């Protein structure tokens, strides 16, 4: 702590901060541009000038840039100093010289940091009488629109994109007053974190192209605290709705999970919510092949109840992309003995093992923010940037933070960004990646070892043994792997806080067991290590804590006639198991009920579709890969603007359906009741009740407003339906109001913040007003409850186990690689994400390519897939061959999502396309 004196008042601040950060943390306003809480100070914009005095006797002082001045003890400054104010006014005046002043037509208008700062400094008159400079813009792909005329040359974009996120295609070009920020050539921005440019840029140079297509001002959007559903990280989001559509996703600050940044899948993958083909009313298909008819809610429930009552046994298939509440209601309806998680067996085994390892490996699971403090990392059998993108960014910061240690040694503060970068150069904390394909983190890694799944596990066990001789050795390990294992072990042992990262991407229990062994070994060596285990879907962790049978079991029950009805919750089974197997099982059922918000292949084959709420229209609880339960809240009421829609949360449908099956009146159901029912039924989930405040939560007696105070058009929005404005929808499930009425301030600490706004702070920088210190934690506490806690004590090592590595001589085995764009079912339905999916590629080792008679760039097609006993034939799409030097022979690397239902390790028959046909 340090005591500083500002404008004659005395404050206690964090002495490790610079003065700008310290003053902003105190709630004092100093305008700034180039500084960013996550990226530190560079002193470029000169906007944050204050007067600093040498000591208490100095009454002259000098102007300094507060971002470049340490908040040292007994520092005395004046923000409200005439000369400092005049200089700050000059700086904004210069920045506005070439700015187009196009706020009325600029998409940044109303949440623009430049607007805020211009107002804050009092610049309201233009004296510059000469021509403005103009620029040409670039096409930067489907995510980001580019308008360089608005640029004020703060350099934040390149600092985020290149330094923070590791991108290489965006740069600063030119010199003097002719600096251009863009790509070296037109084309889609390559980094999967490009969307953050829209928030990092203090003005409208980089804006959200997906928002552009249906643009609404920030103040005219309705928000709720959301949780991203596109992977297992659980980033907090602030989705904005207008006219019944989600129009933009912005980052919602969470001090431990996502802090300031999201990945592009999360930010731009929301389009599935707005799809025109979504089921919006119940549908009934009397006989397969017939046209579906729509039904009202009551007739639909009646018919479904009637059909299900006929059934001997109903199987309920849940979903790791649905809320705990919905899954539990399904479980409660069909009974635990008839409930499947909807997860394929190997994945489910991996999920169970991950939960177990998080409790018993001896190492705790760090939060994403805590990951950044680890000083040596082993990534074993995962590609975090593809499978849990936001974590990739955390891992990169961990590797880069070696710089801050070097800086500390010579007294350079961590916030002095360029100086820290200079010291860093390519000096990183060690990162060892064991993964067959190139990854985005390779450029900062010591090495990447391209191995086949079983060899990944083998190397992991060997590392554990090298760290702790008590861990069982691996038999028959070749000397090269032995040496690698030794190097990795030494590097992890040297670290103060080693981190092991693994996960379920390769569906290999052996790899996870090996990662657990490394964690155990490290914990026995008393290092303050950590273990991060990546799950695939938004609620994979939650569902595995809840428990249930595998999807394979559910299909078997149906195909073998032990059950004759099935209720599928928000799950496209064809994404998980081979199509013939799914089809065969579903065909045996007499009644197929599907609840979903997407028209999936599973839904299309159903007798009944009940239109489920997505995260935009529904509330519920998810558990992320840390084991953190987090609540998401519905953003809008779909029937308000489209009265014909009958979209409801699945837990609400299922509760009502269950009552009907029991022949009872539905009775009350609310989010709170649904959450409590789930928590009460599953001891591992008991904590979810406390993940967020209940519906009665009030601040100063007020509900929390979903709409900003300046929300406009409320009386006009429905005028095409009815000139009388109806009462806004009433939300009895949550503490939020569908209204601008209610609390929306920053001065009372709270966790649940639909949108960040404070007087004078309209941009995302307004989050600074909600945190205990800028870049710290929400003053009301970071949302969510950790459910998985490590248990004390050391467990025994398991014996090394391996998956069946036998390669069928007749074919190559599939190695399905996670990918950020296209590797997740729902976001892959969003148009901009579709455009960013890479062309289908199969990665082959050179000998395998030679055996097939193909070379890099040639085309192949998939002729057949054999998985267990099941054989499928494809007339599949043409796939381009990519030969990779170090790729493990015998394996064919295919991107996730390319062939839905394709399992890891399936045997493939590849051949040259016959051309023309199929």
């Amino acid at each position: 702590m340090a005591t500083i004196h500002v404008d004659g008042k005395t404050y206690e601040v964090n002495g490790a901060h610079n003065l700008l950060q310290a003053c902003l943390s105190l709630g004092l306003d100093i305008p700034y541009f180039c500084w960013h809480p996550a990226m530190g100070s560079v002193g470029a914009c000169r906007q944050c000038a204050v007067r600093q005095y040498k000591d208490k006797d100095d009454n002259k002082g000098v102007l300094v840039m507060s971002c470049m001045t340490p908040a040292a003890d007994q520092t005395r400054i004046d923000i409200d100093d005439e000369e400092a104010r005049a200089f700050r006014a000059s700086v904004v005046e210069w920045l506005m010289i070439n700015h187009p002043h196009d706020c009325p037509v600029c998409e940044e208008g109303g949440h623009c940091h430049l607007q805020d700062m211009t107002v804050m400094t009092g610049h309201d008159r233009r004296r510059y009488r000469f021509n403005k400079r103009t620029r040409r813009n670039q096409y930067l792909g489907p995510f980001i629109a580019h308008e360089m005329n608005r640029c004020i040359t703060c350099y934040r974009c390149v600092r985020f994109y290149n330094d923070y996120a590791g991108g290489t295609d965006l740069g600063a070009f030119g010199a003097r007053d002719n600096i251009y920020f863009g790509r070296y050539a037109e084309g889609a921005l390559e980094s999967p974190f490009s969307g953050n440019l829209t928030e990092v840029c203090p003005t409208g140079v980089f804006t959200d192209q997906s928002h552009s297509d249906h643009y609404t001002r920030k103040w005219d959007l309705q928000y709720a605290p959301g949780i991203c559903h596109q992977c297992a990280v659980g980033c907090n989001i602030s989705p904005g709705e207008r006219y019944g559509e989600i129009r933009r996703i912005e980052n919602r600050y969470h001090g431990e999970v996502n802090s300031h940044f999201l990945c592009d899948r999360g930010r731009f993958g929301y389009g599935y919510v707005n799809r025109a083909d979504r089921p919006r009313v119940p549908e009934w298909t009397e006989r397969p092949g017939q046209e579906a008819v729509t039904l009202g809610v009551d007739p639909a429930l009646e018919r479904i109840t009637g059909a299900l009552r006929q059934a001997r046994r109903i199987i309920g298939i849940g979903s790791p992309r649905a809320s705990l509440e919905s899954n539990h209601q399904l479980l409660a309806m069909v009974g635990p003995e008839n409930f499947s998680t909807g997860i394929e067996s190997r994945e489910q085994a991996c999920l169970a093992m991950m939960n177990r390892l998080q409790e018993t490996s001896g190492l705790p699971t760090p939060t994403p923010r805590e990951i950044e403090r680890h000083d040596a990392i082993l990534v074993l059998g995962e590609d975090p940037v593809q499978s849990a993108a936001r974590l990739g960014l955390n891992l990169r910061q961990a590797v880069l933070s070696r710089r801050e240690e070097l800086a500390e040694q010579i007294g350079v503060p961590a916030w002095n960004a360029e100086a820290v970068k200079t010291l860093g150069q390519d000096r990183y904390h060690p990162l060892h990646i064991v993964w067959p394909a190139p990854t985005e983190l390779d450029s900062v890694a010591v090495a990447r070892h391209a191995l086949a799944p079983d060899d990944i596990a083998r190397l992991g066990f060997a590392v554990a043994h090298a760290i702790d001789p008590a861990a069982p050795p691996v038999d028959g390990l070749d000397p090269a792997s032995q040496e690698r294992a030794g190097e990795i072990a030494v590097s992890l042992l040297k670290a103060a806080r080693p981190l092991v990262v693994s996960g379920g991407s390769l569906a290999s229990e052996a790899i996870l067991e090996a990662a657990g062994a490394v964690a155990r070994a490290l914990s026995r060596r008393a290092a303050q290590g950590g273990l991060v285990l990546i799950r695939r879907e938004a609620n994979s962790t939650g569902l595995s804590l809840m428990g249930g049978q595998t999807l394979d079991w559910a299909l078997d029950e149906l195909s073998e006639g032990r059950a004759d009805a099935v209720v599928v919750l928000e799950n496209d089974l064809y994404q998980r198991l081979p199509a013939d197997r799914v089809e065969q099982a579903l065909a045996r059922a007499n009644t197929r009920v599907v609840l979903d918000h997407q028209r999936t292949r599973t839904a299309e084959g159903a007798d009944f579709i009940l239109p489920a709420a997505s995260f935009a229209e529904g509330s519920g609880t998810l558990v992320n890969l840390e084991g953190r339960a987090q609540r998401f809240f519905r953003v809008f009421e779909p029937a308000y603007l489209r009265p014909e829609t009958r979209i409801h949360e699945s837990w609400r449908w299922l509760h009502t359906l269950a009552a009907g099956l029991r022949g009872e009146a539905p009775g009350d159901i609310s989010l709170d009741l649904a959450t409590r029912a789930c928590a009460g039924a599953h001891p591992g989930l008991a904590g979810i009740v406390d993940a967020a405040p209940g519906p009665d939560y009030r601040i100063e007696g007020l509900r929390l407003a979903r709409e900003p105070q300046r929300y406009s058009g409320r009386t006009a929005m429905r005028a095409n339906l009815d000139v009388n404005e109806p009462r806004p929808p009433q939300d009895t499930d949550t503490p939020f109001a569908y209204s601008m009425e209610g609390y929306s301030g920053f001065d009372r600490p709270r966790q649940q913040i639909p949108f960040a706004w404070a007087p004078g702070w309209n941009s995302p920088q307004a989050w600074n007003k909600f945190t205990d210190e800028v870049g710290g934690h929400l003053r009301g506490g970071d949302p969510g409850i950790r459910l998985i806690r490590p248990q004390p004590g050391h467990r025994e090592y398991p014996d090394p186990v391996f998956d069946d590595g036998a390669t069928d001589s007749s074919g190559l085995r599939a190695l399905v690689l996670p990918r950020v764009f296209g590797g997740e079912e729902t976001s892959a339905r969003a148009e901009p994400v579709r455009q960013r999916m890479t062309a289908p590629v199969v990665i082959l080792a050179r000998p395998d390519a030679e055996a097939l008679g193909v070379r890099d760039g040639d085309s192949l097609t998939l002729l057949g897939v054999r998985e267990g006993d099941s054989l499928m034939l494809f007339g599949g799409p043409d796939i381009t061959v990519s030969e990779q030097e170090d790729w493990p022979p015998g394996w064919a690397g295919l991107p996730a999502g390319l062939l839905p239902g394709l399992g890891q390790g399936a045997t493939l028959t590849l051949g040259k396309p016959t051309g023309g046909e199929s």
Partner: protein
Amino acid sequence: MSGSTSGQGNPLRYHSRIRQSGTERQPETHPLTWRLRDDGEVVWLGEYLDKDGYQSVRRALAESDPQGIITVVKDANVRGRGGAGFSAGVKWSLTLQGGDMPRGYLICNADEMEPGTFKDRLLMEQQPHLLIEGMILGARANNARQGYIFLRGEYVEAARVLNRAIDEAREAGWLGPDIDGSGFDFDIAVHTGAGRYICGEETALINALEGKRANPRAKPPFPGQSGAWGRPTVVNNVETLCNIPAVILHGADWYQNLSGNRTGDGGTKLYGVSGPVAEPGLWELPMGVTGAELLDRAGGLRQGLRLKTWLPGGTSTGFLLPEHLELPLDFDSIANVGSRLGTGLMMAVPEDRGMVSLMRNLEEFFARESCGWCTPCRDGLPWVVKLLRDLEKGQGQAGDIELLDKLAADCGPGLTFCALAPGAAMPLETALRHFRQEFEQGIGKVSGDTRGVPDRVAADAPANNR
């Protein structure tokens, strides 16, 4: 750029030269230039060794440790000849060395680009070994493992000479491992630039050396703590380094006495005069000669011209008046009258020259050479240029001069990221102070809108800007 032969033997070809004859330049009084040949040819290694060359290295490596060298240089008070005037000895004493510190770099700043400055090229083109010798001493004092001469790209001849001299020195064992049997190793590479005045700023220079955009770096940390590739690094000007061998050989007192009692600053200085004078040129003179003496050496202004004002050491220094010609040209005396000694090469402005157009020319230079990192420099200076252009055409508007005052003040030291904009502000501020009337005459002759005036700053060099 490769040498073309088209200009060979062309009488218009520019040659660097010193305007003092060999008889005047004696070892006891002219440590920088006494070895130079009257015919302007290069002093290669043989001749250099004949003229006491590398004796200081031999002595220092045999007799002194790094601290010993630093002490002598500090005592001699060798002040930086690149323009800032900071004591080289003090700078060296702040370089991190010993302990766990990796051996770092010694960089010679040979990016001579300050308008009006043409001294370093003489030293490099005709007497390269003196610089190499100075660098070896600097490397020893700072425990540097590698030296770079950061040479501006336009000094093609200097690059050729330096590279050959480095090869000579390496072959003779003055560079490379185990120099002169001392166990000390050090080598030098020439790095040639690709333009941009900002590269003369020592931290921008380091970024340029690293192959990056030459934006300056924040200080602290100073290069001595974290310079090239984050290693301890010393950056010294060519002339500064060329002073070191004589200081080591003859001692701090001898060096101090070179300037007699003219000034507190010791040693000699390569002074020069440019502009419309009878005999523009370079002279090695004791530190602290007066402007009058120097102008005399240059034969005064060309016939029919009278001195109106002068810049003491490049365009980033403040304008002085004829009355200031009697001041000693040293760091403190010139600073005391609101200017800077800078590089010590005087530029004379005759009375028939308008200050507004001169300032326009000068600010066009600074605006064009801004690296574009910080706002006052990047966006403030082009505004200055545009106002000056209007004033030059008599199209200034009421308030323009006050705006220029404010712009100059806002570009002052501490307010901008590096010294480039303050260097642009000082001549502007002094010109406005001394010659305000000339600026006022630019206002109001023509009223109205000046939009549509071609923007020359934006059009300066389309071939290298998108």
